């Protein structure tokens, strides 16, 4: 539904988006991650028809964003990062206005407003002037506006900023529901959120996409061994010696705690299983056996550092294996 090919954007001589390509398929949620100033908002603004690209093409629902800008704007539901609203208008007045702009007649508007009011929990705030609302409510009004015309594609720039934890959770649930019918592209700083709801992730840094893939794919690419933590009941020295011999075990740390022995070691993929089998064969009770899994944050930080390192080594920095 969203197709971006070799998209670039220069502001004067400054390159904000450097030759990126990606696509968003129907019924998927794609998360757009990146440090501040990476080019997320610029890319989003190009996709929503606000600014034109310097080079490359972008198509939303088959319409080119430059040549068929009005068609693109008609099918996109957009929530900008700053959630701009008119403070002097009441919520229902604002939604009514936006409905008119979308070409909806009165009955359509009324039905749509009822629908988004329920979905975005705005029932209490409908009659209040927007200027009096809290940030959370304003965010919901912005989201309601984006959903009003049942858009084919949703593009959200940091949709859960400023919401309280229950609202964040509910918004995520809402996004998951919506993704069944509409592809969603949203940008975020919150890695845990992206991990929780996105099927695919794009990581952008200094205008380039440095990684793309599903959450699991990206986590699997985190280098380094994963540490294993275990607690076994038995003589420390014997346990320590046996564990050292396990395949893949390195940097074994053994601490004694009464009857129990705490183990911490760097391990390969087979080590955990081997440790469990060892404990069973020697009759050592196991209280805890846990292998750390890499988090998305690990991948993100590693990807950014690698990108900066290769940028620092002069010449055109190579994108991370993608």
């Amino acid at each position, binding site marked *: 539904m969203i197709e971006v090919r070799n998209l670039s954007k220069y502001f004067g001589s400054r390159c904000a988006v450097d030759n990126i390509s990606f696509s968003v398929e129907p019924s998927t949620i794609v998360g757009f991650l990146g440090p501040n100033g990476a080019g997320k908002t610029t890319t989003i603004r190009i996709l929503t028809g606000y600014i034109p690209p310097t080079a490359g093409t972008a198509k939303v629902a088959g319409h080119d964003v430059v040549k068929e800008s*009005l068609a693109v704007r008609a099918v996109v539901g957009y929530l900008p990062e700053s959630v701009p609203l008119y403070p002097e208008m009441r919520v229902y007045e604002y939604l009514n206005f936006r409905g008119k702009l979308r070409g909806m007649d009165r009955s359509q508007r009324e039905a749509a407003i009822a629908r988004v009011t329920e979905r975005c929990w705005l029932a209490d705030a409908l009659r209040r002037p927007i200027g009096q609302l809290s940030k959370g409510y304003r965010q919901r009004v912005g989201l309601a506006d984006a959903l009003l015309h049942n858009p084919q594609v949703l593009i959200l720039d940091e949709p859960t900023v400023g919401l309280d934890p229950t609202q964040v959770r509910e918004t995520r649930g809402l996004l998951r529901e919506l993704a069944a019918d509409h592809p969603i592209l949203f940008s975020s700083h919150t890695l845990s959120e992206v991990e929780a709801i996105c099927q695919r992730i794009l990581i952008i840094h200094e205008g380039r996409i440095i990684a793309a893939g599903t959450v699991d794919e990206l986590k699997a690419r985190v280098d380094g061994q994963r540490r294993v933590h275990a607690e076994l009941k038995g003589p420390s020295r014997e346990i320590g010696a046996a564990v050292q011999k396990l395949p893949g075990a390195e940097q074994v740390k053994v601490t004694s705690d009464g009857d129990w022995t705490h183990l911490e070691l760097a391990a390969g993929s087979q080590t955990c299983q081997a440790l469990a089998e060892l404990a069973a064969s020697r009759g050592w009770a196991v209280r805890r056996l846990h292998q750390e899994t890499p988090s998305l944050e690990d991948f993100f930080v590693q990807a950014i550092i690698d990108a900066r390192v290769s940028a620092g080594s002069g010449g055109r920095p190579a994108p991370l294996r993608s």
Partner: protein
Amino acid sequence: MRNVSAIMQRELLSLFCSPIAYIVMAGFWLVTGAIAVWNADAFGPGKPATLRDIFMWTPFILTIVIPAMSMRSISEEYRSGTFETLMTAPVSDTQVVLGKYLASLVFYGIMIAGTLIYPLLMEAFGNPDWGEVLAVYLGLLLLGVCFTAFGLFASSLTRDQAVAWILGAVPLMLLVLSVYSLVRRFEGWQRELVQQINIMGRFGQFARGQVGIDAVIFFLASAGLFLFLTVKVVESRRWR
């Protein structure tokens, strides 16, 4: 067309929610009223029942008042970021500008309608020439059509309302005053040329009851020019 109407309605709502609207209107009525009082001896018995004295300085007053009315129009959208939501909605830049322009015109019309009390008072105590009254109000409307377009143009140039007001008021003031005072220094074809942009002079014609088609075209064409320029400025904002 519905888009233009939707934008116009929203703009009117916004105008009337802001204290500036009421202050501007009240200010205009107050100043016009003061001028009427100062010129009270022009309305003695036996003297012609005319609005000329009341509205003589109105073009100059409007160069200050109209930009104050329209200063918020586009600059506030830039400042609050709602410009982005407007530009990503399926409406064209022209529709946006037209909607805002019409809203300002409606506001101006209401403001001018408040001065209808003067011809009504004249009718109560005298025998005014309604043809002349009609001509005066046509002149006022055309002045508004022209100045409002310029005020909107000034508003599109900056994020800052105060700057928008200055950018609108100062050129208009300079034009109206300087041409009016300098026109006598020219002779022949040069004077002809300067008379084309002599706004006080053109309005003076309307005040005397003369509806010149050249004046009508002048005001409408200049409005058209500034509206066109406004659309271009708004379009250009996307490229920056």
